[in-house]
């Protein structure tokens, strides 16, 4: 949940109860998971009026609104609107309207945010929110007449510079006698002068607050009494939500000293050193105290006259004035006290110091007023003493210092205040309730279902603080740049320069706002100045015309006769009227001149401020120019570096490519070397095989030459001459073989002829026999048979001859065969018809063409 806390002042520039509590409350809301932004006005030198500065605290942000005494409520409300539009909280919780005015309560509702107001005092009901008359007499809430007289009386105090920063009250005897009489008369209603205006002012304020508080979603008060009175005053329900304290801060303090132990009781006051706080009453009471005791006064104020008086009186009664303190020091200060006094004269609501003293286990003595009665029950943690009655206070302190067992009894029955964390939880419930009620009242725009996702996204984004929205955009732009491959480009650098965490962004934003405010103010002042100048001119013309007419009338009057008496009287009256008119016009003219002078001063002021801003601009511009030059130089450097980097990248890339290429080449060469090595080994092996084959073939050739020679001898029957060419052996063998082949062929032909002859003879014999038996008688057949027998005898003789011839041929062939039938000749002859196998069995191994080529090459190159 996003919560904005709006308060009239904030630590360290404001350190009273409400301011300190708002700071602690912001922390506790953050601890509960809220996102908290605080808006608080302050006045610091060197800042333009209306400017806003944001700073980070413990998990929450504080936006300081620069105000000046002349800052109007309207300006502050406009600033509040700008703050809320930027921060987009869901809940705006006003802790005090001082300085902002009631119209501030309208702004959250106009922006669709929940509005919560917590009243810590009677400010919503009365301008004098202490309900304290100048004579330190309280008036009741809702007593508008008392309020009007108080305002009128405070006007009187304002005219007495000796009172200084009187805070609207004076001590008895502090006023000169005449003034004291006047004051009493005003407060008694005996001086009507100016009272009606005061009454009108009270009525007007009351109405404005009632109207404005009607706009708040939730009105809270920190005590029942205050809630009751404000409900009556505002005409709207005001609920009670007590404030808490950070109990942890006071958890480990040493316990107070019981006066029964004999040590002097340490009495303390912590708070603003103001008259309505009743410090002077406490001093009087302490002065009259007859018991071992110390009085320590902690606090400061702008009421220097009163502070001086307090210091002087403290010295007289033996009290110690320590001065102001920081809120962080409070636990230590409380630890140094036994009794804490709250001697307020005003109707104080629920002072934080009471709860803090309770948290620290200190005994309380408190003014007996209605709201304070809610803090504890009498005799239960402390005592009540009548407000403003020093004697009553002396009695109460005396009892504590001396009454046996009282201190311990009071201490042991002390009430434990509400813890800050519990208060934060209670507020979160209240915020949730308010938001729920608002949501139920606000109709969500009906859109088609397809548009609903878009509507939801837009609504969520619209709800983000501008700062977060801007951060989100810059983050998104970074992602977009990366998507577009432009991560390190100037755009990304610009994003970093103005993005989250950059002081330049806040400065630039504030600067822009200041310039806008100045321009608007300047324009308004110039418009007003021109208008006033025109009005002054017109008035001057009117005055001149009146003067002229008066002179004319006077002239006519001087020239008039008695007969013109009546006319003279009329002229005189006219003259008087004109003189009156002239005087009025003069007064108007002077007023206009005065206004013009004021405007001129204002304009000069604005001009000075503008000049100052211009100078500051110039200074910033100069710084910016330096930065720009530096940036340009850096960009130049960056470009150079980029160029070099690009060149180096290209170079590196080229080298890488070349390296890769070389590596490839090396790998290829290594592969080639390996391959060649393998090939070489193969070639060597093949060469070895060839060498073996060569040797084997040479052996074989020699063997065959021997065999050829032997074969020639066998075939030819004659020895070859010594040293004859082996080719002659081949030719001789070939000739012998041809002769044998011819002989064999002749034998084969002769045998075939013989077979054919025999077959023909048989066929002819059978045919003749068959023909004789069929055509002739037995004699013919016998004759034929005789013929056949003779033929057969011839054939047999022929056959015998042929047989003998065949036997001779066979014998010749057998002889030849006998010569040739040497052992192993047939194998060798058959082996000649085959490719000789390489020795070692590698002769038939397949070879690559290159290997074969290489081998052939080597064979060619190698001398045989």
């Amino acid at each position: 949940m996003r919560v904005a806390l709006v308060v009239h002042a904030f630590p360290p520039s404001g350190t009273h109860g409400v301011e300190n509590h708002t700071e602690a409350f912001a922390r506790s809301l953050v601890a509960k998971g809220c996102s908290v932004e605080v808006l608080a006005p302050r006045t610091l030198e060197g800042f333009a009026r209306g400017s806003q500065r944001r700073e980070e605290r413990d998990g929450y942000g504080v936006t300081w609104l620069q105000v000046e005494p002349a800052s109007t409520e309207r300006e502050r409300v406009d600033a509040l609107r700008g703050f809320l539009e930027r921060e987009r909280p869901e809940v705006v919780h006003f802790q005090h309207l001082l300085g902002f005015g009631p119209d501030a309560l309208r702004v959250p509702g106009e922006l669709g945010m929940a509005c919560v107001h917590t009243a810590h005092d009677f400010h919503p009901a009365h301008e004098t929110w202490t309900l304290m008359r100048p004579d330190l007499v309280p008036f009741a809430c809702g007593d508008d007449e008392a309020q009007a007289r108080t305002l009128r009386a405070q006007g009187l105090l304002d005219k007495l510079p000796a009172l200084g920063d009187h805070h609207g009250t004076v001590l008895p005897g502090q006023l000169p006698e005449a003034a004291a009489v006047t004051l009493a008369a005003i407060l008694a209603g005996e001086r009507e002068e100016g009272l009606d205006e005061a009454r009108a002012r009270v009525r007007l304020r009351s109405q404005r607050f009632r109207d404005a508080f009607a706009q708040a979603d939730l009105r809270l008060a920190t005590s029942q009494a205050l809630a009751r009175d404000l409900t009556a005053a505002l005409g709207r329900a005001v609920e009670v939500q007590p404030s808490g304290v950070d109990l942890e801060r006071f958890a480990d303090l040493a316990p107070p000293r019981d006066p029964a132990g004999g040590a002097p009781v340490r009495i303390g006051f912590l708070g603003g050193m103001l008259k309505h706080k009743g410090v002077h009453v406490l001093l009087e009471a302490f002065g009259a105290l007859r018991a071992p005791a110390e009085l320590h006064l902690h606090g400061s104020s702008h009421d220097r006259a009163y502070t001086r008086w307090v210091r002087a009186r403290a010295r007289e009664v033996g009290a110690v004035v320590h001065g102001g303190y920081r809120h962080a020091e409070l636990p230590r200060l409380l630890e140094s006290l036994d009794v804490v006094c709250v001697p307020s004269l005003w109707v104080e609501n629920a002072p934080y110091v009471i709860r803090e003293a309770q948290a620290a286990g200190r005994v309380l003595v408190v003014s007996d007023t209605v709201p304070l009665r809610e803090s504890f029950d009498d005799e239960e943690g402390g005592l009540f003493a009548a407000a403003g009655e020093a004697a009553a206070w002396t009695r109460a302190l005396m009892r504590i210092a001396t009454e046996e067992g009282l201190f311990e009894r009071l201490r042991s029955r002390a009430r434990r205040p509400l813890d800050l964390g519990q208060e934060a939880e209670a507020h979160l419930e209240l915020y949730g309730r308010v938001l729920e009620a608002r949501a139920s009242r606000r109709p969500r725009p009906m859109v088609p279902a397809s548009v609903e996702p878009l509507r939801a996204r837009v609504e969520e984004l619209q709800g983000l603080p501008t700062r977060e929205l801007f951060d989100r955009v810059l983050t998104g732009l970074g992602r977009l740049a990366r998507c577009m491959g432009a991560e390190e480009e100037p755009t990304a650098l610009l994003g970093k320069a103005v993005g989250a965490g950059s002081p330049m962004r806040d400065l630039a934003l504030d600067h822009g706002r200041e310039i806008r405010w100045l321009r608007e103010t300047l324009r308004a002042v110039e418009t007003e100045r021109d208008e006033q100048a025109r009005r002054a001119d017109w008035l001057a013309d009117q005055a001149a015309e009146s003067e002229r007419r008066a002179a004319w009338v006077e002239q006519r009057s001087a020239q008039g006769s008695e007969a013109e008496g009546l006319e003279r009287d009329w002229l005189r009256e006219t003259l008087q009227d004109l003189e009156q008119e002239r005087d009025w016009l003069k007064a108007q003219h002077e007023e206009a001149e005065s206004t013009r002078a004021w405007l001129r001063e204002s304009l000069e002021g604005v001009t000075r401020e503008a000049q100052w801003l211009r100078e500051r601009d110039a200074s910033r511009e100069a710084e910016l120019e330096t930065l720009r030059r530096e940036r340009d130089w850096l960009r130049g450097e960056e470009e150079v570096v980029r160029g070099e980097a690009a060149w180096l990248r290209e170079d590196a890339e080229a080298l890488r490519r070349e390296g890769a290429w070389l590596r490839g080449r090396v790998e290829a060469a290594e592969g080639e070397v390996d391959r060649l090595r393998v090939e070489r080994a193969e070639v060597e092996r093949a060469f070895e095989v060839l060498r073996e084959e060569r040797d084997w073939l040479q052996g074989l050739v020699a063997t065959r030459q021997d065999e050829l020679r032997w074969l020639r001898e066998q075939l030819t029957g004659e020895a070859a001459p010594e040293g004859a060419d082996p080719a002659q052996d081949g030719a001789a063998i070939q000739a012998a073989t041809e002769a044998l082949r011819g002989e064999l062929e002749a034998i084969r032909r002769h045998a075939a002829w013989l077979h054919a002859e025999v077959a023909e003879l048989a066929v002819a014999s059978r045919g003749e026999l068959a023909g004789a038996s069929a055509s002739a008688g037995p004699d013919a057949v016998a004759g034929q048979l005789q013929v056949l027998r003779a033929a057969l005898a011839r054939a047999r003789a022929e056959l015998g001859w042929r047989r003998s011839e065949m036997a001779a041929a066979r014998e010749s062939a057998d002889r030849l065969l006998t010569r040739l039938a040497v052992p192993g000749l047939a194998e060798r002859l058959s082996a000649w018809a085959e490719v000789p196998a390489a020795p070692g069995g590698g002769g038939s191994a397949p070879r690559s063409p290159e290997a074969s080529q290489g081998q052939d090459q080597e064979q060619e190159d190698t001398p045989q």
Partner: protein
Amino acid sequence: MSARVSVVIPTLDDYELLEAHLPLLLEEVEARGADDEVTLVDDTGADLLAAWVAERFPGRVRVMVRSENGGFARALLTGARVGTADYLLALNPDVRVRRGFLQPLVDALEAPEVFAVSPRVLLGGDPRRVETHQRMAVAEGRLRSVPLAPDPDDLAPRPIPFPLGGAMLLRRDAFVAAGGFDSLFEPFYFEDTDLGLSAWRQGLRILEVPASVVEHHHRGTIGPRVPEELVRAAIERNRLLLHWKHLDSRPAALEHLRSLHRDAFDAAMGDRREELVWLALALESLEPASASRRSVTPVVRTLAESLEASDPSR
């Protein structure tokens, strides 16, 4: 035989617009005599139109009822899917056709390189305000449309950057196969611009056909139902998404990024929160935009070439 047309009108409960514009359309379609079909897609999600249409235009209009409101793009796809004709004529209910508007469109779509055609669309019926006659250009890093004043006497079809989604004719099968408009631009605006630019980048063409005239009573459907700030947010978001989808050169991307940073910073300086909201809204859709960017394939023309080619004043 002229090609048949499926007319699809996605609509909400726009009774008055339909009452005023539908009869003219039906007359035109029936006069063409090409067996065209007219389909109303009831996108109310509440089945509000069927009975009403049956009573007023019995048998002449088919009504498709969507079970939930899905927006113009989805409703058009619903209608296109059930169509049976070759061509799809998408019409908004706030478009009022003029006599003889359909046939010139059909004729102009015959060329295969023409992806889609639009009639001359007169804003509010004003002949001086031609919605379709515009060019798109990148100026100061931003993609913008530049309205042009057409020559009223020139009735030849002219290239335009995109067909107007509320009055365009294109091939139905291709549209359905592509899944209709890019869902990146839902719920509305710039989906038709994207369709056109994608087509140009893929080497196709979009034409305005001046001989075909319709009137567009702009935002007659969205305006009354969606708050102006949401309409503006959708327009500004989708304008950026469109540019991101089609940015295709590093120098253009850098210029665009610079303009975005500058505008974001200016907006933050000037408390112009709505501009930051639009930008943040667009950046939330960066991932889908990147996915859409990858879907524009094959790219034949660069963005610059597409913008130049689609300039009707060229």
